[in-house]
């Protein structure tokens, strides 16, 4: 299935939201979440939104979607003021988006993409071995969960046709679960997500192992529309940067397996932009 076809069909299918009522709150600061983090726990999101609301003196609501495209649609449709996206959609819409903050993972605004396999399946040692196998991706707009895999397959001399099958699992966590269940022989996954799952002792990670790690990329950033007029955008930026300086903020960061936020720079995502350019040329 073509990636564009999948996007056209997937977007309507994920129209339902976890926090639908919050979208109607026009005065609230609405932040979209994607599978770049494991933030699908309602209690944690409530604590984080409370934290931000108190400091911004304005209600903050998180809006989660399974796909990056769904969040982008909401963001560009004016239903979100900010969104936590992956580096790949950011570079694709660099002209329409501005960086609010870039998270620090292990002290740096960087992360890696992983290729994982079921534990003890030694026949798969690298990207070349994916030939004739079933490969699970995370999302068509994910850097680590799709773009990096395309680049590496190309580098290994493989085209998507050389795979037995590939599919999108709608999230990095699902990639780990698909590989653990042997639904796929390998999976392209966000290294930060995999490590966080391992830290939390999730069973899916226990049954998988990392075959390959990529170079470092800019960590998925929190962005806003360039022309956003919401008065709290700048304040949000300041609050996020300051989280690492107070215990409550550090607690929330620890729950996210992060160490802080920084202003970041578009230059962090240059390597992703280059990969996207070359990959999109091949695809089109």
């Amino acid at each position, binding site marked *: 299935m073509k990636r564009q076809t999948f996007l056209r069909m*997937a977007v309507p299918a994920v129209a339902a939201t976890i926090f639908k009522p919050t979208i109607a709150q026009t005065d609230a600061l609405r932040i979209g979440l994607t599978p770049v983090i494991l933030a699908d726990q309602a209690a944690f999101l409530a604590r984080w939104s409370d934290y931000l609301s108190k400091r911004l003196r304005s209600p903050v609501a998180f809006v989660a979607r399974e796909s990056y495209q769904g969040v982008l649609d909401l963001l560009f449709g004016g239903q979100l003021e900010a969104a936590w996206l992956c580096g790949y959609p950011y570079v694709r819409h660099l002209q329409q988006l501005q960086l609010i903050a870039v998270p620090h993972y292990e002290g740096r605004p960087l992360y890696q993409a992983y290729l994982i396999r079921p534990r003890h399946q030694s026949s798969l040692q690298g990207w070349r071995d994916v030939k004739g196998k079933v490969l699970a991706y995370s999302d068509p707009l994910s850097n680590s969960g799709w773009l990096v895999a395309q680049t590496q397959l190309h580098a290994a001399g493989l085209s998507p046709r050389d795979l037995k099958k590939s*599919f999108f699992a709608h999230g990095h966590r699902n990639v780990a679960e698909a590989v653990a269940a042997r639904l796929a022989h390998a999976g392209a996954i966000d290294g930060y997500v995999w490590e966080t799952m391992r830290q939390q002792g999730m069973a899916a990670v226990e049954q998988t192992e990392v075959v390959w790690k990529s170079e470092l990329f800019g960590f998925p950033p929190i962005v806003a529309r360039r022309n956003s007029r919401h008065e709290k955008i700048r304040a949000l930026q300041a609050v996020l940067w300051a989280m690492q300086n107070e215990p409550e903020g550090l607690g929330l960061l620890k729950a996210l397996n992060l160490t802080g936020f920084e202003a970041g720079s578009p230059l962090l995502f240059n390597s992703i932009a280059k990969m996207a350019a070359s990959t999109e040329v091949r695809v089109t």
Partner: protein
Amino acid sequence: MLRRLPYRLQVPLGLTLGVVITALIVTIVAARISAGSARMMTLATVDSAIALLGAKARPLLVADDTWRVYVLLRNTAALLPGADKHHARAAVLDVQGKIVAASDPVRLETGRDVLRELAHAGPDAQAQQWKQRVALERADKALTLIHPVSSEDGQILGYSYVQLDGPVFAPDWAALAKPAFLGALLAVGFLAPIGWFVGNRMARPVRRIAACISQIGHVETAALISQLPIDTDPELDRIGNAVKRLLQEMEVRRQAEQRALSAERMAALGRITAAVAHEINNPLGGLLTATQTLRLHGESETTRVKTLDLIERGLQQIRATVASLLPHARIEDRPLEVGDLEDVVALVQFTATPRQVFIKSQADVSSALRVPSAAVRQAMLNLMLNAVKAAGEQGWVSVKLEGCAESVSFTVSNSGNRLTAEDLERSIAAESGNDPRGFGLWVCREIATQFAGRFEAIDSLEAHTRLMFWIPNRERDVVTAID
């Protein structure tokens, strides 16, 4: 083994065994019925599940969304019979028959061309166009169901696919046996004490009869008969009556035996009386004749003294005979002397003279005699009186007393009919029985036996009878006991 147990155990165990066997049979029959109905129910459930799966998978097949198909299968396959034991699995196939996703990707891996595999599996599958639901059953009862998923305009988009292993249709013996086991347990728990009570009650009359039988000989028959149970059960009543008759017959026999014993005692007493009378009567004849002699010739000093001595020794002999009747009587007896032979001959002479029987006596004693005089005199007197009687009118009797260091013997011969050794034994046996007339021979045998001697008939070519009484020549305290 069960029959060796008492009734109070046999009955509850028998009831328990009956319940268990019944439960077993019911379980087997129920399992057979359940196995048939379970298969129908399983197939109905799978039919519903595969149709539902097809309906749910339709939009996902259109979107080629492997992950969501997997999530759908993961959540719904658990509803299939046998899924909890990994005996059932489901998959969704694309239009080419390749697995889009399966509930168990290890056994049904993604991308596997299932329909092609089935086409190679057997002629039934080869003929299929897969345009409608197909059920393929293997020899091991395993079942594969393929249900086409079509668009609204009838275009096949893919297939829902279910595999059920043979054990799914096998009866669940554990589940079937559980209620039977619990039922049997309850029944046993209820029936065991009742069985014990019933068995105990059934066995009670038998135990009482057995107790009566075991007391036979120790308890009065009338008391035992009164202890016998009276039961309405015809079998037990027959046993009780039989034992009662047995006890009554035993009582009759006991009374008869008692009467017989009494009669025997009376007979024995009669025999003893006769023997005593015989042994006393023997010397009495001679003594009476001696008194007559004394009356007629008492003026002669010699005759008087001799006769009085004879009378005294005769009386001493009677005294010894009477004393021997007393239990554990100790008799002070003098040793036999040669003169005792003359006394005995004199006493017998009074009987022999009227019959004109000639008596010849001889003594040949080479050593001192140490045998008791009373017993030997009694034997000699008996033998000589018998010989006089046996010799007949004008016959003769010859006696010889011999004594040496080892033995003392007394031999009697007479001119009467010959008495052989067999005749003697027969006569002695008769004398010890009911015939009291000839106790002499029997008394001689008893005395000889008592003193470790012999009394026998000596066979010879001569035509007359010859009897010999022989005892060892040694001193002995004579203790006579009559039982």
